[in-house]
C-alpha cells in the first residue's frame, strides 16, 4: 500500500481517514492505472458546485470529502419550515439567503475550504460560467431546473474538449424515498432520457372541481383555481402568505360544507396549493451522501463510481425507506431519440385532424415532453411562436388550423422550443394515428 502524500503536518493529520482511502487503489481499481500521489493536489483544485434543498447536506459532505473550492447557487431565502432538516440554518436566519448563510457556516466550521455563494437561480448563468467547474452536484426541487442544467451541460460538452464534459450528480427526495444518479453528458443517459421516471401528476378534471367535488382536495383546488380568480381578494396569490392560505382554507371549508365533504384542514390546504412534499433530515442525509460519495470517487478515481460508461454499469440508485430499506441500482439506458442528447427525432403520435392549438396544449402533459410554453417550427417554416409578441400575433391564426391544413404529413419533422430550456431543440417526427 502506498502511503499518502507528504503534507504539512496538521493537514496530513486532519485528513488522515480520508487520505487513507482516496490515495490508495483498494481492491476494485487497477493499481497500475491509479496514481495516488496526485489525488490530493488534484482535488484541491476541483471546482464543484451544489444547489438546492439538499444544499446543506451537500456542502457539509463535499467539505469533508476534501474538496477545497466549492460554489453554491440557491435563490431561496430561509423559511421556518426548512429548519427541521436544513441544519445550517437557525431561527435567527429566517429571511436570509440560503446560499450565503450555508457558505459562511461551513467555511467557519471546516478550515481550508473556500465556498462561494450565489443568491440567484441556476438559470441566471450561462455556459461560460459553468465551464469553470469540473463537477456539478444538484439537489434541486423542480424537474424544470434539473432539465435546464442537464440541457446546459449536454450542450456544452464536446468530444474535442474533454474538459467540457462535466459529470452531473443529481439527487432528489420525497418522504422516505429518493434517488441519486450520475450523468456523464453525451456519454450516457441524461435527465431528459430519464423523464419517464417522473410522470407528471394527473390534474383533477375541471368539471370535478366545478360541479362534482368529492374529496377535500377538490374543494381546495376549487378555491385555489376558481374562487380566487373570480373574487381576487388580493392582486397576486402569495402561497407563502398565511393570510392568503387562510382565505383559501375558509373558502374551501364553505364549499366542503355545501357538499358534505369532510377533511379540509389548514395543513391540507397548504399542502395542495403549494404542492408540498414531505421531507425529513434522514432521507436527505442518505441521498446527499450518496451523491457526494460519487463525487469523491469520480474526483479521486480511488474506486468505481456510479455512471461509469460501459455495458451494464449502473448509473441510477433508487432508495426507499418506508417499508424496510430497499435500493435498486441499475443502468438507465441513453435514448437515441432524446431531444437533448440523442441523435434522432422522437416519434410523436398525433391526430391529423388536431388543430395546431391542440397539438401545442398536448406538449404540457406529454410525459416525454412536459413543455408548458412550446413554440413550433416545421421544415424551416415557423408555425407558432410564443415570443416575441409581434411574432406571436403573426402566427396566431395558425392555431386554429388543423395539422393537415398546415401541410404536415406523416414523417414530417417538427422542431419545438420552450423558454424554460434556452438552447434546446426538441425534435419530433410525426406519426399519424
Amino acid at each position, binding site marked *: 500500500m502506498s502511503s499518502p502524500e507528504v503534507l504539512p503536518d496538521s493537514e496530513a493529520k*486532519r485528513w488522515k481517514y480520508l487520505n487513507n482511502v482516496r490515495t490508495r487503489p483498494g481492491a476494485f481499481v487497477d493499481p497500475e492505472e491509479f496514481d495516488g500521489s496526485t489525488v490530493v493536489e488534484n482535488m484541491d483544485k476541483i471546482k464543484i458546485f451544489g444547489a438546492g434543498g439538499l444544499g446543506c447536506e451537500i456542502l457539509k459532505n463535499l467539505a469533508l470529502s476534501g474538496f477545497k473550492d466549492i460554489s453554491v447557487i440557491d435563490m431561496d431565502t430561509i423559511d421556518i419550515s426548512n429548519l427541521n432538516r436544513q441544519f445550517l440554518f437557525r431561527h435567527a436566519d429566517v429571511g436570509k439567503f440560503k446560499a450565503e448563510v450555508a457558505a459562511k457556516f461551513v467555511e467557519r466550521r471546516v478550515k481550508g475550504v473556500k465556498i462561494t455563494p450565489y443568491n440567484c437561480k441556476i438559470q441566471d448563468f450561462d455556459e461560460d460560467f459553468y465551464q469553470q467547474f469540473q463537477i456539478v452536484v444538484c439537489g434541486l426541487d423542480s424537474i424544470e431546473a434539473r432539465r435546464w442544467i442537464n440541457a446546459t451541460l449536454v450542450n456544452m460538452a464536446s468530444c474535442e474538449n474533454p474538459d467540457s464534459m462535466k459529470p452531473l450528480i443529481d439527487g432528489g427526495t420525497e418522504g422516505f424515498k429518493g434517488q441519486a444518479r450520475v450523468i456523464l453528458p453525451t456519454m450516457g443517459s441524461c435527465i431528459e432520457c430519464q423523464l419517464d421516471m417522473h410522470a407528471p401528476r394527473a390534474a383533477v378534471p375541471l368539471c370535478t372541481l366545478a360541479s362534482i367535488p368529492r374529496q377535500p382536495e377538490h374543494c381546495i383546488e376549487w378555491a385555489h383555481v376558481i374562487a380566487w380568480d373570480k373574487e381576487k381578494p388580493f392582486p397576486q396569490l402569495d402561497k407563502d402568505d398565511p393570510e392568503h392560505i*387562510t382565505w383559501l382554507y375558509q373558502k374551501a371549508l364553505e364549499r366542503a360544507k355545501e357538499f358534505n365533504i369532510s377533511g379540509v384542514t389548514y395543513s391540507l390546504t397548504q399542502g395542495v396549493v403549494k404542492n408540498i412534499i414531505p421531507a425529513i*433530515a434522514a432521507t436527505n*442525509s442518505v441521498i446527499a451522501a450518496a451523491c457526494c460519495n460519487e463525487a469523491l470517487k469520480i474526483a479521486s478515481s480511488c474506486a468505481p463510481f456510479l455512471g461509469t460508461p460501459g455495458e451494464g454499469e449502473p448509473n441510477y440508485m433508487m432508495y426507499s425507506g418506508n417499508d424496510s430499506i430497499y435500493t435498486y441500482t441499475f443502468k438507465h439506458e441513453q435514448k437515441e431519440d432524446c431531444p437533448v442528447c440523442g441523435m434522432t427525432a422522437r416519434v410523436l403520435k398525433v391526430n391529423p385532424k388536431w388543430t395546431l392549438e391542440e397539438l401545442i396544449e398536448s406538449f404540457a402533459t406529454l410525459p416525454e415532453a412536459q413543455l408548458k410554453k412550446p413554440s413550433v417550427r416545421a421544415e424551416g417554416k415557423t408555425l407558432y411562436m410564443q415570443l416575441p409578441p409581434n411574432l406571436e400575433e403573426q402566427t396566431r391564426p395558425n392555431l386554429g388550423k388543423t395539422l393537415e391544413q398546415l401541410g404536415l404529413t406523416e414523417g414530417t419533422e417538427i422542431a419545438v422550443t420552450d423558454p424554460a430550456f434556452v438552447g434546446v431543440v426538441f425534435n419530433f417526427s410525426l406519426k399519424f394515428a
Partner: protein
Amino acid sequence: MTEIVMDQTPPILQGPSDKERKYDRQLRLWAASGQAALESANILLVNSGAGTVGVETLKNLILPGIGRFVIHDNALVDEADLGVNFFLDDSCHGKPRAQCLASLLGELNPEVDGDWSPKTKNDSLGSLLKKSPLFTAIMYTYPINHVELESLEQYSKEHKTPLIAIHSTGFYSYFTIRLPGIFPIVDTHPDETATTDLRLLSPWPELVEFAKTMTKDIDSLDNFEHGHLPYVVILLHYLDKWKATHNGTYPSTYKEKTEFRQLVRDAARTDNPEGGEENFDEAAAAVLKTVAPFSLPSGLKEVFEYEHKGPIQERPTFWIIADAVKVFYTNHGSLPLPGNVPDMKAQSKVYVQLQNIYKAKARKDAAEVLQTAQAIAGTGREVDPAEVDLFCKNAAFVKLINVEGGGDTAPLGSKERLQQVLRQEMANDQVAEMTLQPMSLFPIYLALRGLAHCGNASSDKTQIVEAVKSLLSDNLSSEEYGDLNEKLGNVAEDLARAEYGELHNISALTGGMVAQEMIKIITKQYIPIDNTCVFDGIRSRTQVFHV
C-alpha cells in the same frame, strides 16, 4: 349569531404554531401522534473510534425533535476528528469529545435536551446507565470496547431497550437493530397502490340495496346519470348479472375476469362527445384488483398463529385486539371493514352517500371488535377504542418484526444463524451469477464483523479474513469457504486501506438510514428493517439480512 363580514379577510384562525410550522414537512409523514412519541424519546449514543456515524445519526434525530439525547464518549478531540466529524471545530482540540459534540449538536434544535459523559474519571458507562432516566433506545458504534458493550447488553435485557449497533469503515457500513422481543406494527402506511377493500364479492345489505336502487333501470337512465354511476355500483350490478348466468358463482379464473371486464367495457355508452364513459373506464380498470376472493394477508396470519407463552391478559393491548379480530374473522369469514373508498367519478351527493355506507359498516365492525376485546381484557383493563379503530383500519397490513424463525432456524444473533444466512446467500449468488443479478453483500457484513473482532487499525486483509473464519467457526466446508474467500478477500482488502477510519459520506448516509429506522421504532409507524442493513459504498447498494 354574529354576522361574518365577507369582504374582509378573516383573521388567521387556527393557524399553525411556530413548532407546527417548523415540523410541518415531517408531520405530514407521522402526524401529531408520531411527533409526541419522538418528543418523549430519550436516546443514548455510546461513541468510539472515528466517532462520526453515530453523530450523524443523532443529528437526524435531534432535527425532528426527540426529547433528549446523551453522548458517552471517552475520547478527547484530536486533529483527525476535524477531518471527518462536522460537529467539532478548532476550538475543541484536546477537550472531551462528548462535551463538544453535545454542544454543537445541541445547537441544531433548542427544543431538545442534551447531555454528555463521562464528566469525571469516575463516570463509567455503568454509572451513567444507573443514574439516567430510562433510555428509549441505545445506539453504539464500533470499535466499542467489550466491557462497555456488555453493560449495554445487560441494560437492554433488563429494561427491554432496543439496541442498535453501527459500524462504518471506509466505503462500507452496516447496522443491526436488536429489539426486545417481538415487535408488532399496526400503522404500516401501505402504499397507495395497495388494494382498498371494497368487499364487492361479499356486499352487506345496505350496500346491496344502494347499488340496486341506483341501477334498477340502468338502461333507461339518462346519459348524465349513467355517466356518473360510481364504479363500485357498476361492478356490483354487473357482478350480479354474471352470477345469475353462471350458477351463482363470481368470475374466478383469469379468463373469466377478463371476460367480465370486457362485459363491463361493452356496457359503456359511446353515443356521446367523449365516445365513452369515464366511470366505466374506472370500473374496467378496477376489475382485476377488486374482483378477487378474500385471502388472509400473510402478516395478519402470522399474528393470528403466533404462539404466546402466558395468559392473554398480560400481553400488550395489540395482542388482545388481534385476538378479538381473530374472533370476528372466525365468526364472519371476513375482516372488519376498513371503510375507505377511493375517489371515483360520481355526483358529489352520491359519492358521499356511498362513503357513508362504507364508514357505517366500518364503525359497526370496529364496535363489535371493541366489545370482544374488552371482554377478553377483563374488567381490570380498559381497551382504547382509538387503538381498536387503528387496528381495524390497518388489519390487512399489520406486520410482525423480530420473529424468531421456527423449526430449523437458529436463534437470531447466534453463530449458527450466521452460518445459515451465509449458506443461503452463497447459494443465491450462484443463481445471481447466471442471471446477471447483483451479488450478495453478506461478505461485507462479515468483513466488518471480522474487523471489529481484530480490534485494531493495522488489521490487514489476511487478519480480517482469519477473524471472519473464527467468527463462523469451522462448520463450513473448504468448498464453501472457497466461494467466500474470494469475495471476502476483495472486501477485506478494500476495507484494510481505511485503517479503521470513517469516510464522512458513508457515515452520513448510514446515519440517515439508522435515524430513519429509529424513528420508525419510536413512532411505531412504517416498517423497520429486520434486522441488519449493509451498505456498499463502492456499488451504491444496500441489502437487509435477518441475522
